[in-house]
């Protein structure tokens, strides 16, 4: 049975997310954790598809939306390696020391991945979607704004306003 092209790579991202949740929590890959986590962490690829639909739907040309989704998710390699790095830390480093490594990985490697994936996705909009450079940059920003807002709202939710307030207090504002 062939998985329809629309779901193939988003499904892989969800599976990697599910396996990551299992490995970072229990330092092992179990069906008990990886199975359900793959299901509820699929909100991440779904939010990204929503962001992509918002910017691509009006201007789609030669490519079908399924193909657009497939190609867009092919650019997720840097994010997958970032997640795998997190898995490696929590699988092989003792928990107390792993917290310190995680901080470096989350922010250090995370910054590199944000830039790298933006570069790949810019090229997706520029060459796969045949946008002008300015339009490709606009689409990239809009896609990030929509999908990341959804992801952060679901993941962090009600703690965000007081956390922002705490930062402002910290800066004396």
């Amino acid at each position, binding site marked *: 049975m062939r998985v329809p092209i629309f779901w193939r790579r988003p499904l892989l991202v969800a599976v990697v997310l599910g396996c990551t949740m299992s490995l970072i929590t229990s*330092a092992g890959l179990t069906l008990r954790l990886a199975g359900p986590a793959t299901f509820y962490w699929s909100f991440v690829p779904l939010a990204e598809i929503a962001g992509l639909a918002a910017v691509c739907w009006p201007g789609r040309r030669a490519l079908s939306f399924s193909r657009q989704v497939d190609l867009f998710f092919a650019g997720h390699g840097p994010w997958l390696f970032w997640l795998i790095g997190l898995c490696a830390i929590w699988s092989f480093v003792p*928990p107390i020391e792993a917290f310190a490594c995680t901080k470096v990985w989350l922010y250090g490697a995370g910054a590199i991945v944000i830039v790298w994936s933006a570069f790949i996705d810019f*090229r997706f909009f520029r060459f796969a979607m045949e946008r002008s450079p300015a339009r490709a940059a606009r689409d990239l920003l809009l896609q990030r704004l929509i999908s990341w807002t959804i992801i952060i709202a679901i993941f962090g939710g*009600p*703690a965000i306003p007081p956390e922002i307030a705490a930062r402002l207090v910290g800066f004396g504002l």
Partner: protein
Amino acid sequence: MTALRWTAAGLLLASIAVGTIGDASRVRPHLMLGGCRVVAADFHVHSFPLSWATLAPWDTAWEAQRQGLDAIAIVGHNHVWVSKVGRWLSRMTGGPLVLTGEEIVSAHYHLLAIGIDSTIDWRQSATSAIEQVHRQGGVAIAAHPLAQYWTAYDAQARHTLDVAEVLHPIAHASEDLAAQLRTFYSSAPLTAIGDSDYHGLGPIGLCRTYVFTKEETEQGILDALRHGRTVVYDRAGNAYGDAALIRLAAGNLLRATPAAGLLSMFSRLAGILGLIAVALQGSAWRCPTGLR
């Protein structure tokens, strides 16, 4: 490319199979000391969604059981509904005792409200929030009370506060932070607890509290917290809490971290190699247009 796909699938399946076979709960014998049941608890556990946590409430409860915990408090950031879902699901499936709660995340303090039913607004002073926790029959806990939060706990707040986290994973990051937690705990007559502030990284109950309770119920645990019947051990084996209970426990509660078995190591290694193979197959590193 096909070979890489098969390799990825094979490694992941082998890893999941071995990991699932070895996925057993740690059986902790019921321990009675001084006429009390000793309950291993973690009162600062977050669950997906809305709290920067990775595991759903049902997974959180089961994972807590696997880590040898008898009770946990699932605390949502400024909401209680996820903890209510967790309590209901754990009851339905025979999981550990789940206490409902909220971490009141304000700009000036973080306060755990355990045993409450309705969300408490974060836009108020610590004193006022503690009062609301008590009005709902709950217990108020100063969450990771580092120096930056001390000004929020004025004399009245410290007088009405029930519990403070004297042990938290941040204490392992530096001796200075650990000292700040101990200083706050010593600043008022508070019950000592150790919590993992679990968001999905590492094991639940990395820092835990031994509660000496007359009955293993939500009310029994809340009552024990109100009356200071707890013992907490840090990494070096130093104990905090009720002096008489510490003497009574006398090392009975210290737990050794179990070493990872060969099968567990295989599961981890195969899982990570499998994920690398998944990431390598079909990913574009510069531009995705050339892919099929």
